[in-house]
């Protein structure tokens, strides 16, 4: 591992195992540490101003790492209605049928690499390579909470309504972000995630072309 200085109150640990380093730093429970933030290949450790970061560096460099199974959070499974606005476009970009896009998205196993963009927004690794498609050229100004989306090598579920440029495949009703909950985010760095196709629930006013009335919810 290489430890880089980030100003006078933070260190950046470069590692191929960010979740294990993240867990190991938290286990140390150092009183001067304010935040431990995993990235794609790093862990940022922020400390109280005035801390001697030069002394902290070697300590973090020699950190004994826990096994990944010890630190993995409880797995989460999202039931998804795959009726996203970009499903046809993703099918076109990948040369797959809509059903194949859904099947590939729902059969992969994902891990939350890190969170960012907005509170509770996890970047999920494990997306089928056939589904690696670029972001939309122009982002939407409003993406509803619960939107299941992909972009580049990542999958995600939008935790709150926000602008967004990812390709929308479907939606889930699971709440990802709730400030009254502890922790407020359903997803943590390292959480394992699965998706399961669910058939559309009946709506009060069915949109044109939707399924027959009386469709049962199946998971």
């Amino acid at each position, binding site marked *: 591992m290489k430890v880089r200085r*980030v*100003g006078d109150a933070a260190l950046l640990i470069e590692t191929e195992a960010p979740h294990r380093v993240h867990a190991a730093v938290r286990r140390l429970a150092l009183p001067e540490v304010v935040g431990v*933030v995993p*990235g794609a290949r790093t862990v*940022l450790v922020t400390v109280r101003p005035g801390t001697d970061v030069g002394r902290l560096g070697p300590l973090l460099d020699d950190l004994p790492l826990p096994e990944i199974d010890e630190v993995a959070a409880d797995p989460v499974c999202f039931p998804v209605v795959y009726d996203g606005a970009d499903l046809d476009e993703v099918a076109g970009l990948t040369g797959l049928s809509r059903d194949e896009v859904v099947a590939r998205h729902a059969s992969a196993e994902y891990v939350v690499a890190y969170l960012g963009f907005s509170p509770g927004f996890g970047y999920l690794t494990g997306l089928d390579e056939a589904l690696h498609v670029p972001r939309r050229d122009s982002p939407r100004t409003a993406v509803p909470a619960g939107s299941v989306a992909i972009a580049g090598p990542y999958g995600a579920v939008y935790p*709150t309504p926000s602008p967004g440029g990812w390709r929308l495949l479907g939606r889930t009703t699971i709440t990802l972000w709730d400030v009254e909950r502890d922790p407020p985010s359903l997803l943590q760095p390292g959480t394992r995630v699965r998706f399961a196709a669910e058939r559309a629930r009946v709506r009060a006013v069915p949109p044109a072309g939707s399924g027959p009335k009386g469709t049962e919810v199946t998971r």
Partner: protein
Amino acid sequence: MTIEVVRPGPLCTVQDLGRPGYAHLGVPHSGAADAASLRLANRLVGNPEDAAGVELTFGGAALRFHAPAWIAVTGAPVRVSPGAMNAPCHVPAGTTVEFGVPSAGVRTYVAIRGGVDVPPVLGSRSTDLLSGLGPDPLAAGDRLAVGRASEPITVDCAPGYEPEDEPVLRVLPGPRDDWFESLEPLIRGGYEVSSHSNRIGVRLEGRPLVRRRDGELPSEGMVIGALQVPPNGLPIIFLADHPTTGGYPVAAVLTTADLGRAAQLRPGQRVRFRLLAGL
């Protein structure tokens, strides 16, 4: 006891020292952009340093006090009537305090003895303009409750933020200085502060930093004071509401002592950097 917002000015928000410790869940730090000025204002009225106050952006606000209060105004210097900067001031019940437009700097802080008491979200009363956490920016007619004071007032006045024509901010190189040919553009010539600056970051215009390598940086954690360099080569100084992770390399980071001065940089103003050797 309540305070009524008669006029919020261009942007008026409740701020304390923010939400540290949630960045791994994507929650920005937030809090007073010039935290040193908020801490000072709180000390002047006998509050804990992390009590919530009001952050004015380019002044222009008016607050009516429905009960007697002690207030302290710090940060970007404005005319306070009735009152003064950098000293505890007693405000009789029914007084409307008017805040002028700052002659220098951007952000003025108003601490009220007892602290602004709005419901905390994740341990903080700060308005976060990136994520939307915390109270909305204040609007005319809003009423703010005030908490209970705990400590006596022990200071008469204090040296506050001192405006500078062309600040020289101290930076430490890295963590990604090796992505650039040289950090020399930072120290030579300086930059002009862009009008597209806000609580998320201060954008700079001037000589771009030149990349030494292509490709994308895998997203990594960001800190307040980071000089993040997007593909156009012009650094953005991250302030309190910066995103928690980012995919552009950080060439250098401000020293903690200079964060407040960065938050007072005004569009059109010039700024330079001084590179400290790695510690």
